[in-house]
């Protein structure tokens, strides 16, 4: 009996030690995922209930105190088949943006969007310095040779940005607990600005969801230059 009781106690002691070790191993991991960041799922839906793709989504802290890491790599706005690709590019303020030219014809890219105005002289290939946008805002792009070309760069004071996919869904990973404002932007959206921002408090839970239901009809998606309607020559 004595031996057996002792054995049981010993076993129980060992189990406790293992359990403690397990807790010691896993609790900090649980803590790390649940306390420091939270995934925010953002959905953009038009007034007909259809999901809207290619909408910029970004988060800024409500108090405006954003610790912006220095941009680590350049962003790219290419020109392919006499179109800006992508049609909408989102970058953090201060990110150098490269404008390579994948076409065989020259382009002459400009923007008059204050205060991010710039002009890249006529060029082919990648023989010019990237353009850095130091101010947040929408930069609309044109080509002075091909008037039909239209593209946008959205410059944001945030490192938390993305675009909605074809299902109208975007995911941001945000610190917790914090108070954020989630913003969306697209050249197709005509709703007033105040409907394009939503406050969000990230709590100690793994995911939260923000849905933007647009009230106004979207403008049609940008249609690229087509050979069927090539009116630019004359």
């Amino acid at each position, binding site marked *: 009996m004595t031996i057996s009781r002792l054995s049981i106690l010993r076993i129980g002691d060992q189990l406790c030690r293992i359990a403690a070790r397990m807790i010691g191993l896993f609790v900090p991991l649980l803590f790390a995922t649940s306390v420091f960041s939270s995934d925010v799922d953002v959905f953009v839906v038009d007034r007909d209930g259809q999901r809207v793709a290619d909408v910029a989504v970004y988060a800024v802290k409500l108090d405006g105190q954003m610790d912006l890491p220095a941009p680590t790599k350049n962003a790219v706005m290419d020109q392919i088949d006499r179109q800006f690709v992508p049609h909408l590019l989102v970058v953090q303020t201060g990110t150098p943006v490269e404008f390579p030219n994948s076409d*065989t*014809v*020259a382009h*002459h890219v*400009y923007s*008059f969007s204050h205060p991010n105005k710039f*002009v890249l*002289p*006529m*060029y*082919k*290939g990648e*023989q010019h310095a990237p353009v850095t946008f130091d101010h947040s805002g929408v930069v*609309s792009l*044109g080509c*002075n*040779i091909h*008037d*039909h070309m*239209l593209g*946008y760069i959205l410059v944001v004071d945030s490192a938390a940005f993305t675009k909605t996919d074809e299902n109208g869904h975007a995911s941001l990973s945000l610190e917790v607990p914090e108070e954020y404002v989630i913003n969306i932007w697209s*050249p*197709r959206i*005509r709703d007033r600005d105040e409907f394009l921002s939503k406050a969000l408090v990230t709590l100690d839970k793994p995911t939260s969801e923000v849905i933007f239901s647009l009230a106004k009809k979207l*403008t*049609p998606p*940008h*249609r*690229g*230059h*087509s*050979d*069927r*309607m*090539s*009116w630019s*020559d*004359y």
Partner: protein
Amino acid sequence: MVRLLILISATFLAFAAHPADGSDAPNRYQLRAGIDVSYINASGYTSWTEGFVGKLLYDDNNEDLKISQAFVDANFQLTDTLKAHAVVDAYDDGIGSIVGFTQAYIEWRPVPRSKNRYRLKVGAFYPHMSLENVSAGWNSPYTMSFSAINTWIAEELRTVGAELSVSRRPETFGGAHTFSLQGAVFVANDPTGSLLAWKGWSAHNRQSRFGDQLPLAPLPQIQPGGVFEEQDPYIEPFREIDSRAGYYVGGEWQFNQQLLIRAMHYDNRADPTAFEDGQYAWATKFEHIAAQVSLPGDWDLLFQWMTGTTVMGPVTNGAHMVDTEFDSKYLMLTRTIDRHRLSFRYDIFEVTQNDKTDEDNNPEEGNVWTVAYFYELSNKVWLGAESMIIKTHRCAWEYYGIDETRTEKQLQLTVRFRFGS
């Protein structure tokens, strides 16, 4: 034909020897050239280009292999915002020299500083009208022969002057709409309108070059003893006779590459009593409307309508000696799928007479049916076929003892070569 062949061969050898699209950055020039080799089977009156009344370029005497088109279209970027553009067309039909300029101008495209884009053209160029003539060298990718309206533009209309256009960048209107306005002041388009009165509408692809002398039929009124006996037996459409500038104003709305509407008012402000060196000035005014719509199933619908007046000579009996109204419209359906392009076009045209000058009898009416097909063999070679039937009733044809109503036909099988980027 032989001289034209030699010239064309030399041009295309030069193109072949030249690296078509070098890797130099930036490429400051763009050279494009084209040649259509066609088998033509035509029936109708002897062509107007031969000095008679046929509405086509070809007639019974012309069943043959022809070079139905040959051009070089060159763009040179002088600075980042200044471009020179010139187009040379070659014809061996005895109307002017073999090669000549159809356009030569400089365009200034300042980098926009606001949502307005300004463009200024100075030189000789086509007014911004045709929906068909959108390819290099002001040619049509849809058919070989142009509509009656654009055929007349090719024959007699050119801006020699300056055109300013302003367009609003599309993001102003949610990225979908583009608006533009044009205004031009020009000279050297005074005889314009004379061919519409004295020859009538036509259907072909010949573009008048500067220096061309377009032949007139042996009209009784321009023969010795006729009311206009001073007129040369040809028209020089790009002449300044009265030292008065003309103008046009126009506008355009494009919606998302799906709809385009264009309108224009033209007035050459010519003095209809002016005359110089065998050429009369014709006061010509017209309104022009054009629309293009993308339809489901890869179809495009094109429409142009032109209506106007041309007058010449002093006023007698309440009207100018020649006082005519002209009107034409066409509808084209075109579909491009992969390498195939099929186009149907129906034109109607009319010239009516308001004057009471009996020996100057210009009314006509008619229509044109055109079916054209292109197959893209490669990005340099297309195979094409076109059938065109043009039916005309023209009173003046009685002068020559020929039927006043005639249906002229033309079948064209073409190998179309295009070079350059």
